[in-house]
């Protein structure tokens, strides 16, 4: 009992630390890569090639003045960043990041909790993340924030439907809701679900982009129309929490996409954990690449695209999968 608890605790701590480090260096990587896409250099001053930039940013944010606007709802205003930030951590609990290893004569699974309904759990936790944004928008007592919050909640609810439906094809093929089983089924590259569910992958990717508010779906925080959307009024550590939450959910989206479609930690030669990190990194770079390329959607286009194109496509995907399975 005690050893189980200790092992679990160690796993949680290690995963959290690595996750936070990844978030920190994701901001650096994004700035750097984006700069090179735009034929610039990006951060160069703090440390060699700006490697200590995340540290400097963090310190700067920590020492900024923490402002709570007058007329805002103080409790909810403080609560909102926490609500956006915590679910991103909770998603990590069910993502397998490696084959089980043997340590001190004990076999340890490289997953925090092998919950047999991993995918449903992820959806449950992710759906709670909307509240942070909505409440932040509402409690700031600011028109831009409220508009940003409303927009984002509408966007997230709309795209969550297609996101859920796009995964159902995989669930039908795998016959399991456990992410561990899904990864184990993709043992060779031909068994990766991207090849068996290409349409689902495209829908999943688009919906995931919309869920994590990345360009081209960054309407909630559209800088040039809404100042900064729902976090216009936020400063200092609270702003940092939104920032962490956003980049954390970006990593989560990559991790889930990797697990579902790209065989998770499966791969030859290299250790499984390394493969997992490489695949996540590729996804993150792809997101940044998209940011460097695509313009933002208009709001009505966004809604029409979500309900009019993605949802029918997702349903069609389920339909085709069912037909092929029964055949």
């Amino acid at each position, binding site marked *: 009992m005690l050893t189980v608890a200790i092992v679990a605790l160690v796993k949680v701590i290690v995963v959290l630390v690595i996750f936070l480090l990844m978030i920190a260096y994701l901001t650096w990587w994004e700035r750097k*890569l984006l*700069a*090179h*896409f*735009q*034929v*610039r*250099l990006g951060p*160069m001053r703090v440390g060699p090639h700006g490697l200590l930039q995340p540290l400097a940013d963090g310190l700067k944010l920590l020492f900024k003045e923490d402002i709570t606007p007058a007329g805002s709802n103080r409790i909810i205003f403080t609560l909102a960043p926490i609500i956006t930030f915590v679910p991103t951590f909770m998603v990590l609990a069910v993502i397998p990041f490696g084959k089980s290893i043997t340590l001190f004569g004990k076999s340890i699974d490289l997953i925090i909790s092998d919950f047999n309904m991993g995918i449903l759990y992820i959806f449950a936790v992710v759906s709670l993340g909307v509240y942070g944004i909505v409440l932040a928008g509402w409690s700031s007592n600011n028109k831009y924030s409220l508009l940003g919050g409303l927009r984002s909640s509408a966007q997230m609810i709309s795209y969550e439907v297609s996101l859920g439906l796009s995964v159902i094809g995989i669930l039908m093929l795998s016959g399991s809701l456990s992410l561990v089983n899904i990864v184990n089924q993709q043992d060779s590259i031909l068994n990766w679900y991207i090849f068996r569910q290409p349409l689902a992958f495209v829908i999943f990717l688009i919906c995931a982009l919309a869920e994590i508010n990345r360009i081209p779906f960054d309407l909630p925080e559209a800088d040039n129309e809404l100042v900064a959307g729902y976090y216009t009024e936020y400063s200092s550590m609270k702003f940092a929490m939104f920032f962490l939450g956003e980049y954390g959910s970006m990593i989560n989206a990559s991790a889930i996409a990797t697990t579902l479609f790209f065989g998770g930690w499966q791969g030859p030669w290299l250790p499984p954990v390394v493969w997992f990190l490489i695949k996540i990194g590729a996804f993150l770079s792809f997101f940044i*690449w*998209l940011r*460097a*390329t*695509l313009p933002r959607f208009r709001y009505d286009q966004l809604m029409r695209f979500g309900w009019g194109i993605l949802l029918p496509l997702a349903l069609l995907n389920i339909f085709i999968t069912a037909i092929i399975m029964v055949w």
Partner: protein
Amino acid sequence: MLNYINSLLAIPRGLLVTFKHLFKPAVTLRYPEVKEKLPERYRGLHYLARDENGDEKCVCCGLCALACPSGCIYMEPGENQRGERYARVYEINELRCIFCGYCEEACPVGAIFLGKEYEFSNDKREKFIYTKEELLVPLPGEKKV
């Protein structure tokens, strides 16, 4: 239908364009360490020239002040020991100056020039009124004011 396919293909096309840009060398200049090569006719901070004897060329005729569209040049004439007219006071307000170079063109004796110096920022407004001592080219062996 063809329209749709075309607009869908626009996304990978755009991605390709940005991808090509990824490998271009950055145009950024790392400023304080590396400085931009200024063009030949760059107009920066003024300086007052001296003749071959090391005397000031300026005869305080006032043509530069007349030509100046922003009226930033102020001068008071004086007479030196040899009885020649010279500028006792010569001030240029660099905050008002628009660096048009008309003073340089107006000068009949070739005394005022616009140099290549552009790093003369300061946090006090008074420091931008450059006096004659600051504008004159230092004599060899003399330290610049």
